[in-house]
């Protein structure tokens, strides 16, 4: 990609992104194209990271492990649902990932947890997301009993309107009261350690950057 195009892309994205400055956007774009690699050059096909590539990044860079959650994160990034994370989606997604406000994050997390997208996190969805969260006790008759109980505990804690499912309002209220519940059903945001490492790696050497820009 030529410099002019890059410059233009950077400018557009910076304008639309409130959490990153121009330099950071530039770094992220470069990183994106590094990750996409040669695939971009293929004409016709949309450029971007497909599900597998993206999941790989989530796993390697942000230490996520839960397949289902990673799929949901991919969905969160892939706004136009075309199966590919484009450079715009990439920068937007990361803006929330790294710098998002609590409100933005709540919205994002809720969407991740709302598996069927009906605006509620139902008991079944919770069960689905929590089903691997407990060590299976071989002694127990019903291995799912613990999970069911955990779902009940969560509902008791977060379901303020007692309708047996979590609305966004329920979720928001619970998170505002106890921030730990933001990622209640599984880690879908980078943990602070990998976030710092990522930022340190990607946003390094502003001087280099200026040199590049000037030369």
């Amino acid at each position, binding site marked *: 990609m030529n410099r002019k195009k890059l410059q233009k892309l950077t400018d557009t994205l910076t304008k639309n992104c409130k959490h990153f400055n121009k330099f950071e956007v530039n770094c992220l774009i470069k990183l994106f194209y590094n990750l996409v690699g040669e695939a971009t050059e293929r004409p016709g096909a949309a450029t971007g990271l497909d599900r597998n590539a993206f999941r790989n990044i989530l796993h390697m860079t942000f230490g996520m492990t839960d397949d289902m959650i990673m799929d949901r994160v991919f969905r969160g990034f892939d706004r136009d649902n075309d199966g590919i994370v484009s450079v715009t989606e990439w920068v937007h997604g990361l803006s929330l990932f790294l710098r998002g406000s609590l409100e933005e994050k709540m919205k994002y997390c809720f969407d991740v947890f709302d598996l069927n997208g009906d605006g509620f996190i139902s008991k079944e969805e919770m069960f689905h997301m*929590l089903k691997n969260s407990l060590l299976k006790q071989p002694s127990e008759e019903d291995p799912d009993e613990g999970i069911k109980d955990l779902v009940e505990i969560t509902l008791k804690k977060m379901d303020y309107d007692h309708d047996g499912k979590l609305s966004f309002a329920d979720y928001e209220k619970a998170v505002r009261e106890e*921030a730990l519940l933001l990622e209640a059903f*599984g880690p879908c945001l980078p943990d602070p350690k990998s976030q710092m490492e990522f930022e340190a790696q990607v946003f390094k050497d502003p001087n280099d950057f200026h040199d590049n820009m000037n030369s």
Partner: protein
Amino acid sequence: MGVALARLAQWTAASYGTGTLEITPLNEILLKEIIIFVEHFIYDHPQEAKFSFVEPLEWKTDLEPSAFESGYIVSETTVTSEEVDKNGQPLLFLSVPQIKVRSFRQLSQLVFIAKDTKLKEAQACVEANRDPVVKILGSDYSTMTEDSSAFNILHKITSSDDPESEMKMRIAILLKQLDLHLLSYILRHISLQICLNPEPVKKDIELLKSFSGKGEQTVLESIDYTSDYEFSNGCRAPPWRQIYGEMCYVLVKPHDVETLCITCSTEGVFLNGGKTDDEGEIDYERKGEVYKDLVTFLKEKSAKFSENMSKQDIRFNEEQQKNQIDEVPTYAIRKSVSGSDKNKLEKNQINFRKNQMTRRLEPSLNWRTTVDFKDRKTPAKDSQEEKHGGKLEKTRTSISPGRAQLLRKSVDKVEEMASESSSESEEDEEPPDHRQEANADLPSEYWQIQKLVKYLKGGNQTATVIALCSMRDFNLAQETCQLAIRDVGGLEVLINLLDTDEVKCKIGSLKILKEISHNPQIQRNIVDLGGLPIMVNILDSPYKSLKCLAAETIANVAKFKRARRVVRQHGGITKLVSLLDCAQNSIEPAQSSLYETRDVEVARCGALALWSCSKSYSNKEAIRKAGGFPLLARLLKTSHEDMLIPVVGTLQECASEENYRAAIKAERIIENLVKNLNSENEQLQEHCAMAIYQCAEDEETRDLVRLHGGLKPLASLLNNTDNKERLAAVTGAIWKCSISKENVTKFREYKAIETLVGLLTDQPEEVLVNVVGALGECCQDRENRVIVRKCGGIQPLVNLLVGINQALLVNVTKAVGACAVEPESMVIIDRLDGVRLLWSLLKNPHPDVKASAAWALCPCIQNAKDAGEMVRSFVGGLELVVNLLKSDNKEVLSSVCAAITNIAKDQENLAVITDHGVVPLLSKLANTNNDKLRRHLAEAISRCCMWGRNRVAFGEHKAVAPLVRYLKSSDTNVHRATAQALYQLSEDPDNCITMHENAAVKLLLDMVGSPDQELQEAAAGCISNIRRLALATEKARYN
């Protein structure tokens, strides 16, 4: 009967198999009772008397067949009863010398026949039939000895209707009654004539020891054995004394009399000749009456002991009873009772020690903790005791592990004592470990918490966070929940979570630990589980909210010494101090994420933790070394109350040590403390006042408080008396500040004196000590003395002279003494009998009180009308004063010398104290380097010279040479007093010679050149006396 025979009867040593009964009065009684029972049986229970025993009672008898009369078939060597059982067997069969008896009727006949030898027969019978019940009723009934008997009996009654077993039952019950009768009879007998033996004596001594120690409330100062070696029989006396029945010798030091050397022998307790000086041998000779036990003896010898004993009598008796119960073999009936008693008593004992601790004199006035302690801990304690009381039977089994733990802890504690000193000791009481009973009715929370802990253990990060959040919904301030978390193993899990990489789990875990660590037991559990080092490490975390939580939890846990030490040893203090170093930018971003928080918050939490930690001496040092003071000083400039309270609290703790006060002064902290006195927050005001109280020991600080305008807010805070803790802090600050004259003037301006007088009544002791202290300082000023008198302050002051709080007494005596300088006030004091009260305080065990009382007496004697007469009217008063010269406390000695100087102004009194041997006692003190004592001693000597041949006597007791050396002191007051004393002494020629020999003339000549006129005069007078003597001798030689 079985029980009584088996356990109580005194069998001879070789008592297994067929033993014989010892001929002791006890056994005799036992046998007589049995005989009476058998004799009456036939009349009382004719039906039962016919019952034939399962097996005959068989023994060797001395009865001759010829003794048997009608109703028996008698041959030469055999006797058969006519009465037979249903199988035709005779109920009595004698074949010399063996006799077999099978019914009570026959037994009772036999007793009748035996007449004089019945005792012997009964003895033989009992000896041969060790378990008569089994023989009479069959082996089923041997269980009668256990206390499950009632159940067995009932069971048998219900299970069979057959008349024979019903009969057996009735007999069993009768025998049981006899048994009980015997037991109670014997018990009464034993308790009357229990003779001392090593066990109870040992227990008595141990018990007294636990009630002894320093302080007002104890019964004795000390009690010790003379020998550490204990023989296997429990005696400590050497074998050649043991043959006289002597068991041990104890040295007892009561509060009010000399050390007593006491012999404990089997006959009783008596005073012996004491230790002989040279070899430490004991003079075994009896020197007094024999008392029945140690307590009676001591009550007789020491008034203080009996007074304090009467206060503690109930407890002591309970203890003693417990011991006695232990001595008597425990039998079924008593078992449960003694068990529960023991339990309660242990509690009591703990409680009692605790009280003692609180009462212990704290001259540094850590009143705050004392208040807290009383208010907060005692009710908790009580409620716990009640709980225990309710479940006595259950706790009996569980008490031993608990005790073991207590023991272990006390070992720990000793260790701690050795390793560091703390400005606060009371706080370190170990709370009794109290676990919930597994089978008790557990609250539903318990099971829910148990489930959550299970998920904590077996869940991944997501499940753990959910469980942690859910756990926070329980009322974690409630003890049931706190202990439930611990008892289901939750603490271990929570602490383990802190060691993981999962920040969210750490935050969640700390949020819970922070809440439950308000519980003293949990604090100890956390330390025991090694939680503190992990938390200290978390202080380095890059996430501020995590740091905050860790610091807050440390603040809660570090409430006791061992915890504080762990924090320090793991470098916690340095890390906490660095938390204080927050960037001072006020425009910080609002909390943007879970892991962020404001720097100010971090600093606040750091200060909070330091506040807790600063209660240990070594931690204060560590805070200073880590550069904590400049940072604290900087934080003090902020205006957040949340921040200021822990900061001032930390400073106040540190200010108890002098070098930190210097650091505080250097950081210009006083200014800000004064500023915060004007805050609205009562707690902040309290801590500021407290810090000023601590710091104002230093003169410059007192001036700083005044210069920064701190006296006015202090004076105005006096008017708010609702918050006693703050009032105590404020009065404390006023007390210390009023040591400076200028401050007193200011206080007068602000009408603080009047307010202080108003606070003399209806206030807790913590406040009174400070109020009286302040008045004592203020009354050094004449104008203030007038104010105090006019406000009616003298009466309440004199009333306080009868208190027992030693710190208070020291201050009250000082204040009364200060008032007595004013003759008009003296009239009031005299009228209120204040002098007598002061005088009786000379008997107070605490030297500070003694000294202060003696100082206060000086102006009283000076200013009272008919002082001489007044002094004489105190029976034994003069002797008491003179005997105080035997004290080894320099301050007491100085004050008593001063009092003697004043007393000796009256010729008659001087004569009396001379008779009491004041001269040798004063002379003995002459070799001292203490300038204060030198001065007052010299004055006393110079006064005492005015009677009879006292001058000569001082010379004889070698007081002159040391006095001459006083002239080399650097203190002019000493010079003046000494010169006057030497002048008086020089009236005696021998003394002149001694002075001359000790080169007094040269020294005195220098004194003549002094600007002090009195000194000049006295020195010159002395020289002239010496010179005159020299001239006289020369004259005599040449004539």
